[in-house]
């Protein structure tokens, strides 16, 4: 039976990784829930953001400032992607396929520029960690948690309380009627899609700060992030974060108490169990 400290550290690292799951899921849950687009390219975009971050950091730029470059660029990509999908009236299931095509293309681009070698960003943030009681709190992970929580709550509040958010929710339910009441639903949808891509850039920075990058890694995150998004409820940013943390902590505890090899099973078992017992909460 591992010590209390070890358990505590496990839970903490589970919270941190879960926050990253939630942050990765933010763009996905919004585009799936509000735009009916299942965006597989989101993952490739996150990694592209991470790689760009790594590249610019190697050139001397502060990792956090790279967002000033990547976020706007990705925003434009998000707008363009939605424009394309809307222009061809692509069905929700087919958006899965089209974005898969984009994922393949972006992944190929990454591999072509940076090769399949592992890349790790060296930066001053990475070496900072504090001790709180018996537990270690690394700065990059803490930053991720703060950013994830702030964004999740911020977006949730925006959707719930502001006129813009209500307009987005209305437009996602019935776009033509929303337009009849003055909501420029086309523009809102483009804005939202751009925002989701910008969130991918943010997630990319957090990913690069705390993880080693390789193109093949893209696929490893798909399953667990989808699980977090679905359990958290489509279109619910806070839900995705909470679900992500629950999955992260469960994985960490499984690793500590049972065996590391079984950790990947956790998220899917949770997902399958959730879907079997409370499926009506989705969609």
């Amino acid at each position, binding site marked *: 039976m591992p010590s209390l400290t070890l358990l505590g550290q496990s839970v903490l690292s589970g919270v941190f990784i879960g926050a990253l799951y939630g942050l990765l899921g933010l763009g996905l849950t919004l585009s799936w829930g509000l735009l009916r687009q299942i965006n597989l390219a989101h993952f490739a975009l996150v990694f592209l953001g991470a790689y760009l971050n790594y590249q610019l950091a190697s050139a001397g730029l502060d990792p956090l400032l790279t967002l000033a470059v990547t976020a706007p660029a990705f925003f434009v990509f998000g707008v363009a992607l939605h424009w394309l999908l809307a222009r*061809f009236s692509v069905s929700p299931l087919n958006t899965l396929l089209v974005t898969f095509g984009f994922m393949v293309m972006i992944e190929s681009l990454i591999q072509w520029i940076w090769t399949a070698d592992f890349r790790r960003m060296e930066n001053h943030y990475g070496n900072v960690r504090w001790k709180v009681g018996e537990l270690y709190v690394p700065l990059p992970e803490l930053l991720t948690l703060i950013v994830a929580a702030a964004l999740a709550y911020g977006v949730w509040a925006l959707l719930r309380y502001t006129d813009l958010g209500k307009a987005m929710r209305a437009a996602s339910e019935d776009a033509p009627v929303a337009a009849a009441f003055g909501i420029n639903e086309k523009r809102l949808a483009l804005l939202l899609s751009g925002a989701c891509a910008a969130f991918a850039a943010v997630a990319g920075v957090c990913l690069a700060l705390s993880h080693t990058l390789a193109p093949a890694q893209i696929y490893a995150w798909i399953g667990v992030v989808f*699980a977090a998004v679905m359990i958290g409820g489509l279109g619910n940013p806070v839900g995705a974060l909470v679900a992500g943390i629950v999955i992260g902590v469960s994985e960490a505890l499984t690793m500590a108490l049972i065996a590391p090899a079984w950790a990947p099973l956790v998220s899917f078992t949770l997902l399958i169990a959730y879907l079997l017992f409370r499926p009506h909460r989705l969609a």
Partner: protein
Amino acid sequence: MKPLALFAAVGAAFAVVPFLGLPAFYESFLYLVFHWIVLATSWNLLSGYSGYFSFGHAAFFGAGVYSTAVLAGKAGWPFLLTLPVAAAVPAALGVALGAIVFRLPALRGELFALITLALMFVFATIVLNTPLDGGPGVYMSAVEVPALAPTPSGSFYLLALILALGTVGIAYSVYRSRFGTGLFAIHDDEDVAEVMGVPTYRYKLAALALSCALAGLAGGIHGVFVSYVTVGETFSGWLALNVILMAALGGTRHWAGPAVGAAAVTVMTFYFTTSDYAIAGRALVGLIFIVVILFMPNGLLGRFAVRKPLAARSEATAAGTIAVQGKREEPILVVRGAKKAFKGVQALAGVDLEVRRGEILGLVGPNGSGKSTLINVVSGHYPIDGGSMVFEGRELAGQAPHRVARSGIARTYQIPRPFAHLSVLENVALPPMFGQVRMDRRAAQAEAWRWLAFTGLEKKALQFPKDLNLHERKFLELARALASRPKLLFLDEVLSGLTPSEIDGAVRTIRAIREQGATIVFVEHVMRAVMELTDRVVVLTNGRSIAQGAPREVMRDPQVIDAYLGSAHA
């Protein structure tokens, strides 16, 4: 040329290849093409035909790979003997998954896709951490390959060819069968298909089992072909998505679509991976995929995926009656204390009514009084919460909807719900195929022609529901309901939206239906029609029946007048 002859010819032509003395490269390349044809086509059997997109094909493929790997590679079984196991294990796993998941109506569409994706990771982890693989992978080089051809690569080629021909053959025969029609109906509107008599649960399980078994077989062969299997390579997300790509590229609605797509993609990727531009090649494949989905959402063969009618108009069955067994005036349906609630709203709060054989019973009531809900619970569209519904002496409550359809109950939908991708003729032919009599496709279509003539839709038989206007779609609903020659027919607001002259025509048609021997329950707001047509009327308010009797009396009942004209905000 007849399909069977064509298959045989193609098969023979390809079977000759290993004996031509060509370099092994060609056999291996074609092996890969056949391999992907099997994977894509088997995936399509469930996902393309029925619409249940699976992201977990790799899971079942992997189960097949490891069945053979463990039995032949570790336990020393002869290779060919492991193949039935490689088919059976994935099929069993698929059926186990389906048995649970298919029972839950909420788990469709994207949710089913993701649960199958999860399955792949679960299988991979289990295999990786148990003696099945344990980590180092399984070596199969010692496994003896049966000498079907001069060289081992030739033997694999032939095995794959046989499997590919078999798989495509199965896809073709399902496509043209009643089973296939049922799957396509499930794709368009599963709930309606079930209510029309399609045994949806059983069909989905069958399609899933078939799909898994074929993928497993491909896996069993492939494991020995590559001679060294690892979890990472076998249970790969790339495979899962590649299969979907191939089927979607070729066209999921056509039996040959996945095969065409598989061949195209294999050739393209092979060409690129062998060149110096492997990475660019992959990107190009991604781009091609995007372009195809955008411009040809139904795939390359999408346009050819329209099934020709099997019966011509001239073969329409002759007019005849819907047999009336039993005495007139005796009760055919007795409902007692029917209760149904939705999220806190009590739609039916204990309804009692009786439908007598051969009558036209009007079911009226204010909006929200439970009329449509009553039809939905009797036909099985929703399960009832409490009470009983006895039809011709048998209890309906708790029966699967397709059984209710088979006992002779049919209904129309207030807002027409035709099967969008089936022609008008095929729509009407569905109930005869799955209803009381269960005819084959040809006989059912002949029967359908008759009812299309009856409702005046003959000329539009080969068109699709989207080409019909509302009036025609309502009559399509009617024709479809009549085609199963029901003993009891529920008409749910068939007249709403029609002009008075159209209503007159509809009233005449409904009378003609009754003369053919059907008992009709007629839900309506158009009072004129209710007065003219019905023998008796039942009034529902707030989920309860408050009056029953002859139309004129009931509509003069003060309670009824109060319910209808009194409280303005029900």
